[in-house]
């Protein structure tokens, strides 16, 4: 039987993994929608409004899933991790409060106007609502990443009787890893959305949709991805250097490097063995890790064996999950690089229609990569969050000291319920996104025959509420 600590960790991990899928989409999709809306305002071309109309539906769906899974998390702080707020509540509290006050209400209220306000509000107010929703989601990301980064690299506090007290709010907000983590996540959101739009648009193109709305959505998405991916590789590198400075044990685990030494190879494949404290089946590029982390072959990279207590208890994170998550993230990123840059050739240089010959295979590749952003984002979060263990707040609070004393059986039962719901909802979400794409492609009417209601409402054909 697993204990409450492990079960609570799995539960929170499952919850936050499920949750992050949707903000990752809404943060950037809000700005893309604003772009479509502004282009429509500037050109008056229907294709921009077609793109807006389709993607606003996906936005609404993603937003709803983000809201309901986010509420779950705010309660789990209390139900499963009471020690977190009791120890660092003076810092986490104000940051979370500011997120709710400045971002949540803004998004929620203007989402109503953005989704349903046409015909009721003037065009400028609708554009403003779209802007405020995008701004709200980004502001929300800012506050939560401030808090998360502070948990990785705490600053601006002093401990009194085991409780953290703020001494410098600017140092708390602009803590050492915040600028890197925030940028990395915002760009990740941009990439996730561009591959989502590209994948779904490619799918519609393969189904025979020749509309301009699909074509400009595809082009916009590929252009955004092609620009963002090199930026992301650079930001990721900088973030890694920041981690090396403040959380060397995490970097040691990412590289599965056991001894602190120079000329450390970059491992392409390995099976880290924590019992024997060595790697099996290494496939490596000589000096690779030293070059990436220190920018020279003789660079010294910290090793995991430096982070072991006198009695042999490891003070570093579990190695395999961090090592492999990191590789999945980087591998997916390289796939994104290849596909988006190939797309620049396919969409702007190649003369033949995309649905013929090689172009068809390219579109299929995009469809396969529709949710690649999710994969990379999750793998990246696993790298950094598992990489923080055994700490919940680095140096201040361990994960096991924060957990509640709720019975393991209770946590197990809620965990199973959550897992079933999350799995079902994720599957349904993907299904409905493609269903909406199918419906948009075939032009099958959304409005069903409505029984006529009594006058005067009957004059307005009632569409299903959406």
């Amino acid at each position, binding site marked *: 039987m697993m204990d409450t600590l492990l079960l609570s960790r799995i539960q929170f991990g499952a919850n936050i993994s499920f949750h992050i899928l949707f903000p990752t989409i809404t943060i950037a999709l809000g700005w893309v929608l604003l772009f479509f809306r502004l282009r429509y305002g500037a050109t008056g071309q229907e294709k921009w409004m077609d793109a807006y109309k389709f993607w606003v539906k996906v936005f609404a769906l993603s937003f709803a899933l983000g809201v309901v899974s986010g509420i779950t998390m705010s309660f789990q702080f209390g139900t499963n991790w*009471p020690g977190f707020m009791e120890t660092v509540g003076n810092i986490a*509290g104000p940051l979370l409060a500011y997120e709710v006050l400045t971002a949540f209400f803004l998004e929620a209220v203007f989402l109503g106007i953005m989704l349903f306000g046409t015909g009721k509000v003037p065009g400028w107010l609708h554009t403003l609502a779209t802007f405020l929703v995008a701004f709200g989601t980004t502001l929300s990301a800012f506050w939560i990443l401030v808090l998360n980064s502070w948990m990785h690299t705490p600053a601006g506090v002093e401990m009194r009787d085991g409780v953290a007290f703020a001494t410098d709010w600017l140092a708390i907000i602009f803590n050492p890893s915040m600028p890197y983590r925030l940028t990395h996540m915002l760009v990740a959101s941009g990439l996730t959305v561009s591959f989502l739009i590209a994948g779904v648009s490619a799918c519609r193109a393969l189904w025979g949709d020749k509309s301009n709305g699909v074509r400009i959505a595809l082009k916009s998405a590929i252009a955004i991805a092609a620009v963002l991916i090199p930026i992301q590789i650079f930001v990721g590198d900088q973030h890694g250097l920041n981690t090396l400075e403040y959380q060397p044990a995490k970097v040691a685990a990412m590289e599965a490097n056991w001894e602190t030494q120079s000329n450390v190879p970059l491992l392409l494949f390995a099976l880290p063995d924590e019992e024997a404290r060595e790697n099996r089946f290494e496939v490596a590029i000589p000096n690779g890790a030293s070059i990436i982390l220190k920018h020279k072959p003789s660079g010294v990279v910290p090793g995991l064996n430096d982070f072991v207590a006198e009695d042999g208890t490891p003070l570093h994170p579990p190695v395999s999950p961090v090592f492999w998550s990191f590789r999945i993230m980087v591998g997916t990123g390289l796939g994104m690089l290849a596909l988006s840059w190939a797309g620049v050739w396919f969409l702007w240089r190649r003369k033949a229609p995309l649905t013929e010959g090689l172009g068809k295979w390219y579109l299929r590749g995009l469809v396969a990569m529709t949710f690649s952003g999710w994969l990379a984002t999750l793998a990246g979060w696993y790298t950094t969050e598992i990489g923080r263990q055994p700490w919940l707040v680095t140096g201040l609070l361990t994960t096991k000291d924060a957990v509640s*004393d709720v019975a393991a059986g209770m946590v197990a039962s809620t965990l199973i319920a959550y897992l079933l719901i999350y799995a079902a909802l994720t599957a349904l979400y993907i299904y409905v996104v493609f*269903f909406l794409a199918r419906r948009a492609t075939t032009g099958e009417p959304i409005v069903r025959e409505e029984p006529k*209601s009594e006058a005067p409402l009957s004059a307005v054909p009632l569409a299903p*509420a959406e």
Partner: protein
Amino acid sequence: MAFFSDPGQWLPFTFAGLMGLSILIYVVMDGFDLGVGILFPFASDDEKDRMIASIGPFWDANETWLVLAIGLLLVAFPAAHGTILTALYLPVAIMLVGLILRGVAFEFRAKAPLTQKKHWNTAFFVGSLMTGLSQGFMLGIYIMGLQYTAATVLFALMTAICLALGYAFIGATWLIIKTEQALQAKAIAWAKAGLGGVVGGMAAVSLASPIVSPRIFEKWFAFPNIIWMAPLPLLSLALLIALWVGLRRLPDPDDKKAWLPFAATTALFALAFGGLAYSFYPYVVPEQLTIYEAASAPEALMIILVGTLFVLPMILGYTYLSYRVFGGKATALRYY
């Protein structure tokens, strides 16, 4: 005034007030959303679409008041947050599942294939009902001092049903404002039928609390408190009678009075909530922990208060804008 010169006193009090206000706003505003969901099985498919349209632009913001309330509990009274939520572990989990079902059903019922719509309607109803019941259960257990015995669980089951009924009632009064013709007539009938449940629920809580807690008994019935507090139950009684009479006179020919039952119900909820708040003050965990003991550091509270005073008027302002934009009878909701 010593009270206002000591931030260790007035800050926790202010935050208890803010938290109470958020809970009250939540109970009224998401109360009518949830109520509309609980009434779903009694409506035809066409009516269901109209009912959804009456809450579609608002529900998300309404639910955010719950996040703010729980956030304020979390940030202002961290010690109480842990104690209360671990004691309410299971009902909280059931509520969360309910909120998830309700929230996603809004979207999926409009976007999934039409053949699946009836399943999402069911999910919308079940999610709304689960949420209302579990919140009522939590209220009951909270009143009973977060203790689980056969008697307290029985009491909590009763408050669960009463709160769900209360939500259905305020949901019906909301529909009276937002609908017309046959659906409005139906909503009036629902409200009439639900009024008895509201009376029963309020009576049960009012009687049970002083019986369970001698401290609460003392606060209400000792002289001179009984005089000061008398207007509260009397006003509630007057409102209930007004509702009983008023609902019989609806619909009125020019629809001028359609908003009255909702306003009266909101006032009733506020009075009941005020009574509960008075009963429990100064405790945040009943009989165990006061708001002054559980409060965060004054510095942290001050930071939040400054932000709150600045942002709250803006939130109320654009919430007002949204209700203005979507005022009047509910019409079909459509994207762009």
